């Protein structure tokens, strides 16, 4: 669901297809369109775009009331031990059942939630293990909360399970038929298949991609899948899980080592002036206290090592490791507000690297107009992208809205090196770090991306070297020592490429004293003696000169010696859950990590006798658990991190060691996923009075108008998506004639029913319009598209692949001219998968 795997991740689809042909796996595709993925699946269930939570919620409802789930002891054992189903929630929590689609805690202006009422009921805090507070760790130890209260029998109506059961009670097969437009029978087939293929002997996986993220309820859709998979016991086990199929070679890496406003590398939060982040201590306490009973109890080590890596010798305990000089965010600085601020003239300089917002950005017309307000812009790419060329031949130039002679933006195009022209690592969608070696020098003045940032940094350090201003401390003291060793550059024409090895080593972490790489993040210290760019990557360079990204020995299964899966080469997260609470594999067939009571743990008891027993994984899989913590271990009430967690607390990054069916924290739009209609929808929410996500991010600014609910001018639902033959905004595919000729022109997929209604003929031109803009496309009339009968109304859906722009060797209108700036409240990802529009036959100019 939410993924068109065969088209967008064709090689990954090799594996489910193998499972189907060789092991009889059932493949199911739930998607509004019949795609190349649907064609290869056993079942295709068409649902109206944006109704995924209804469909998944109804599966949850079906599962927990099914005979199998209630009689096979596997499910209860898994759910009670490994999820927070048994945990009691605060008595003043009010669910959507109580508030007709809202949760308790909504602010008076209705724009945000306080999650105070979503909290666990807890025992009294324990007596702290330490009185002194010499270190950050001591501070955390003094603030260990009481254990959550539970009812393992799941009888208490305040247990997560009972709240969840009640919450999803209205998500029935009939609701699915009514809201999703999917026949009841088809839904039941999907639900039954999923249930029947889960259990001790079988696991099921749910795979998604941006078909789920690009919604105003994107995070909650994914949460629903996670809840369902937790209930089915499909997490932490081989063949299970919720797989995010990400779209770009190192998009995982760019999230891990975030070039994202809200995050520091390794998923540490960015210092934020809105929070209590005044000093390093405040920052650590604010961020780490709520998580201190998980592995995040080590937050101080991660954070201090990060700052040490930034400022090196200048980072000392006395100056809070340079924390004061590190920027703080003050709001949402994500890409959509970035456009608005650019339009408002707040942003003067813009670095665009391997990105093409003139095509790929939401409300692309606004994006392009914003580019004209800049003082300067640097574009680094392979070809003259639409973004680079916006000032000379964009649609706005042609229409006269912008005039080249009036655009003051100073534009630099810097040619970029392609992957085989540089050394580096990518992190794939499975968190696997893989190195690519340099094969040739880049041509002409093309250089690697790291070269640009490193050399720009060198020049800036030079410009600021004599400054004594506080504000320039960070750049002056920035640790910037990535000059290549002569041997690294010897074979190449270009001698000043920064050393990829040195960069990765800093990401990996090393001891400050002697510069030795750290083999694991357990070696990190909070006293400034270790520097580490991104703690989760520690271990990729376990010893000097060895890059595990270059491990290239695969095998038939986990392939632990192919690349390096962060963290610590663990391919399946929380894989402790692949055994039952007592440490025995759930089944022989699905064995992965289990407790071997005989094995030599390598530890000795105080009497000096060897202690037997440890976790083992014959496949070579990294064990996502403390290697010698016995299954029956009881956590210490006042312990930090691993000390607090018990031997069956498989979910070691959660402060209660459980998978969260109910999220007491971390989400801004509710602890349980509930169905809201997309921000622009042709129908009313038939489930609750609340129409759409109450806290969705909206920007009511000029140039970004929205459509009303059931707006008669825009009655048709539009989804945008990708094709196999192109990539993203096309800057890496539309310039390749080999790919251009496979999918030459922008087209619009339309059902014959809608085509008949609007007099549209296959192959001819159509014009699609929203309040933001309009585009022209060729019509592809196909029964793969279908209308949905919702609430007595025929809802038509059309689809537009969004790869095209006016440059390259395959050209077409920019589909994002149609979309608006509106997004998910948790992560500010736009709603590109569903919004409303209108369509008519004919080209743009020839108005009917």
């Amino acid at each position, binding site marked *: 669901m939410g993924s068109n795997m065969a088209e967008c991740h064709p090689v990954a689809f090799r594996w489910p297809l193998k499972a189907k042909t060789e092991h009889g796996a059932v493949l199911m595709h739930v998607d509004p369109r019949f795609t190349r993925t649907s064609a290869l699946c056993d079942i295709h269930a068409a649902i109206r775009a944006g109704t995924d939570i209804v469909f998944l919620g109804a599966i949850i409802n079906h599962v927990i009331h099914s005979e199998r789930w209630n009689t096979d002891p596997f499910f209860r054992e898994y759910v009670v031990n490994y999820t927070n189903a048994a945990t009691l929630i605060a008595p003043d929590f009010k669910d959507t059942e109580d508030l007709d689609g809202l949760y308790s805690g909504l602010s008076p202006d209705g724009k945000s939630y306080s999650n105070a009422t979503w909290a666990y009921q807890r025992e009294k805090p324990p007596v702290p293990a330490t009185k002194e507070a010499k270190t950050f760790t001591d501070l955390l130890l003094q603030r260990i909360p009481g254990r959550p209260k539970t009812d393992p029998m799941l009888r208490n109506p305040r247990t997560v399970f009972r709240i969840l059961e009640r919450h999803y009670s209205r998500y029935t097969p009939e609701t699915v038929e009514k809201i999703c437009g999917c026949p009841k029978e088809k839904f039941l087939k999907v639900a039954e298949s999923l249930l029947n293929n889960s259990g001790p002997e079988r696991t099921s996986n749910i795979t998604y991609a941006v078909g789920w993220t690009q919604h105003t309820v994107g995070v909650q859709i994914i949460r629903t899948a996670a809840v369902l998979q937790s209930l089915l016991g499909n997490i932490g086990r081989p063949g299970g899980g919720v797989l995010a199929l990400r779209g770009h070679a190192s*998009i995982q890496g760019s999230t891990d080592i975030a070039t994202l406003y809200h995050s520091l590398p390794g998923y540490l939060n960015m210092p934020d002036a809105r929070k209590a982040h005044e000093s390093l201590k405040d920052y650590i306490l604010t961020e780490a206290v709520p998580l201190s009973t998980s592995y995040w109890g080590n937050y101080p080590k991660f954070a201090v090592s990060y700052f040490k890596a930034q400022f090196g010798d200048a980072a000392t305990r006395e100056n809070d490791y340079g924390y004061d000089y590190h920027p*703080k965010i003050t709001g949402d600085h994500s890409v959509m507000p970035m456009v608005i601020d650019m339009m408002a003239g707040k942003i003067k*300089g813009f670095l665009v690297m391997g990105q093409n917002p003139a095509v790929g950005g939401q409300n692309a017309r606004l994006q392009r107009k914003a580019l004209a307000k800049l003082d300067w812009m640097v574009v680094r790419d392979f070809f003259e992208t639409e973004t680079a060329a916006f000032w000379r031949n964009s649609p706005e130039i042609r229409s006269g809205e912008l005039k080249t002679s009036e655009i003051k933006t100073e534009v630099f195009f810097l040619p970029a090196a392609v992957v085989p022209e540089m050394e580096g690592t990518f992190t*794939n969608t499975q968190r696997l770090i893989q190195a690519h070696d340099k094969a*040739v020098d880049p041509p002409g003045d093309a250089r690697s991306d790291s070269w640009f940032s490193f050399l720009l940094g060198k020049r800036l350090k030079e410009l600021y070297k004599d400054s004594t201003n506080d504000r320039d401390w960070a750049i002056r003291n920035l640790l910037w020592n990535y000059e290549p060793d002569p041997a690294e550059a010897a074979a190449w024409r270009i001698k000043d490429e920064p050393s990829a090895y040195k960069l990765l080593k800093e990401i990996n972490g090393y001891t400050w004293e002697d510069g030795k790489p750290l083999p694991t993040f357990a070696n990190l210290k909070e006293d400034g003696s270790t520097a580490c760019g991104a703690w989760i990557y520690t271990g990729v360079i376990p010893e000097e000169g060895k890059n595990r990204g270059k491990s290239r020995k695969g095998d038939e299964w986990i392939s632990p010696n192919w690349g390096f899966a962060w963290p610590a080469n663990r391919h399946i997260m929380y894989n402790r859950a692949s055994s039952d609470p007592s440490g025995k594999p759930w089944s022989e067939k699905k064995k992965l990590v289990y407790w071997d009571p005989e094995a030599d743990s390598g530890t000795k008891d105080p009497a000096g006798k060897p202690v037997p027993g440890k976790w083992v994984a014959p496949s070579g899989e990294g064990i996502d658990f403390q290697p010698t913590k016995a299954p029956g271990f009881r956590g210490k009430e006042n312990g930090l991190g691993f000390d607090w967690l018990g031997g069956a607390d498989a979910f070691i990054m959660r402060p209660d060691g459980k998978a969260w069916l109910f999220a007491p924290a971390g989400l801004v739009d509710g602890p349980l996923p509930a169905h809201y209609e997309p921000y622009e929808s042709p129908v009313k929410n038939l489930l609750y009075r609340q129409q759409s996500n109450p806290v969705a991010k909206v920007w009511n600014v000029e140039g970004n108008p929205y459509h009303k609910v059931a707006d008669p001018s825009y009655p048709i639902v539009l989804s945008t998506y990708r094709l*196999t033959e192109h990539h993203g905004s096309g800057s890496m595919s539309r310039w390749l004639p080999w790919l251009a000729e496979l999918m030459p022109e922008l087209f619009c997929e339309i059902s014959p029913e809608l085509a008949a209604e609007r007099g549209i003929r296959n192959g001819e031109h159509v014009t699609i319009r929203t309040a933001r803009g309009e585009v022209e496309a060729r019509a592809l009339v196909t029964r793969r598209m279908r209308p949905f009968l919702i609430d007595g109304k025929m809802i038509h859906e059309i689809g537009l692949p969004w790869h095209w722009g006016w440059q390259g060797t395959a050209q077409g209108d920019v589909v994002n001219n149609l979309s608006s700036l509106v997004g998910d409240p948790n992560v500010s990802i736009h709603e590109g998968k569903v919004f409303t529009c209108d369509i008519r036959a004919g080209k743009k100019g020839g108005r009917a």
Partner: protein
Amino acid sequence: MPDSTEVNPSRRTFLKRTVGVVSGTVFAELAGFGVDLGALAAKAGDVPIKRGKEVASICPYCAVGCGQIVTVDTATGKILDIQGNPDSPISQGTLCPKGAATYQLAVNPLRWTKVKYRAPLSDRWEEKPLDWAMERIAQLAKKTRDANFNEFQEMPDAKGGTVRKRVMNTYAIASLGGATMDNEWNYVHQKLMHALGVVYVENQARI
């Protein structure tokens, strides 16, 4: 090697391409007289094939991370061929159409390999030295940052008033990165941006 984007490849280049690459040799029209080379294609073993130094790489497109082998002509130092790496447990030598086209991403006459500069209000690109461009960008970055740096900012407090907080940032520079770039770049770039106080740092992951 092919200039694959040529609109009308000349007969000579196309011939070289197809004959030169596929069967290995171009024979002059009459050169074959007297010696029977008719068995050229009929005999196994001595059909020439692209050969060179093989370098392990990863596909630059989606996040599946398929393995690639880049073959480099040892004589010319140019890329001859890019195809799947059979050793990769992820892709087992296979590629999708985009991955299979990686060669044309690298070797493409439409690719720009020189610095281009568009002065304010100008209607044309000019070619510029790389060094000049880097220096100009550094100067602009410094100028913009210095004119728009915030050491402190009034932030709303819990009581409806404001409180002065140290922010050490600038809103005047923004960075938007793609996500087909190395981990190393992400690291070095975020480091530089943070050192400059840039907070509008975003990438494709949000999109």
